[in-house]
């Protein structure tokens, strides 16, 4: 079965720096991969989607890359702010209708 691994459970960075989160998957590549943000006690909120034929996607200070050879997606938060502190979930879509979610990486941005 597919396995999704997100790098270290927690990432602490200084305000203004770039946070880089990793999502690795096994076996076959997904048709696309999504990233979500989850705040404590809330449901996840969609951030970005990248398709298997796209190398990079940007949205404001967020950037996602997708390398099907490495079976990896990287999620970057540039010029990080304390308001970016949250848990970020990687969600590849391997089958129709369903996403598979990683355990998430909790980012804490220090002022």
């Amino acid at each position, binding site marked *: 079965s597919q396995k999704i691994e997100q790098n270290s459970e927690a990432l602490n960075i200084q305000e203004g720096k770039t946070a880089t989160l990793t999502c690795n998957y096994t076996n076959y590549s997904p048709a696309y991969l*999504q990233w979500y943000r989850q705040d404590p006690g809330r449901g996840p909120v969609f951030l970005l989607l990248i398709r298997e034929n796209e190398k990079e996607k940007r949205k404001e200070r967020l950037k996602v890359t997708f390398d099907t050879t490495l079976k990896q997606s990287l999620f970057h938060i540039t010029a990080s702010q304390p308001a970016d502190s949250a848990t970020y*979930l990687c969600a590849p879509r391997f089958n129709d209708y369903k996403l598979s979610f990683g355990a998430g990486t909790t980012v804490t941005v220090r002022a």
Partner: protein
Amino acid sequence: SQTIHQWPATLVQPVGSPLSLECTVEGTSNPNLYWYRQAAGRGLQLLFYSVGIGQISSEVPQNLSASRPQDRQFILSSKKLLLSDSGFYLCAWSPGLAGVSNEQFFGPGTRLTVL
């Protein structure tokens, strides 16, 4: 605009008691609907999904069941709760048409504690 509702927000139930969590979506038709569970410090586990009324797919065999009596209503049930059923339950929807953005929109969640 679309809105998703879940209730109750929190629930404390004794072991062996029944469960019914409800989710409704407004502002869209024929959505795909999902129930997830998130244990403390863990990722989201897909429990059930539905592509239409009366069509339910189960991802994890357990003592939970789901029903979709109406197009925009999704219900999660149990006849007898176990301690291991404690967690944060999330309902989500996505557009039902293939080719449309498949991002999922999540409800506010229900925090269930089984004692």
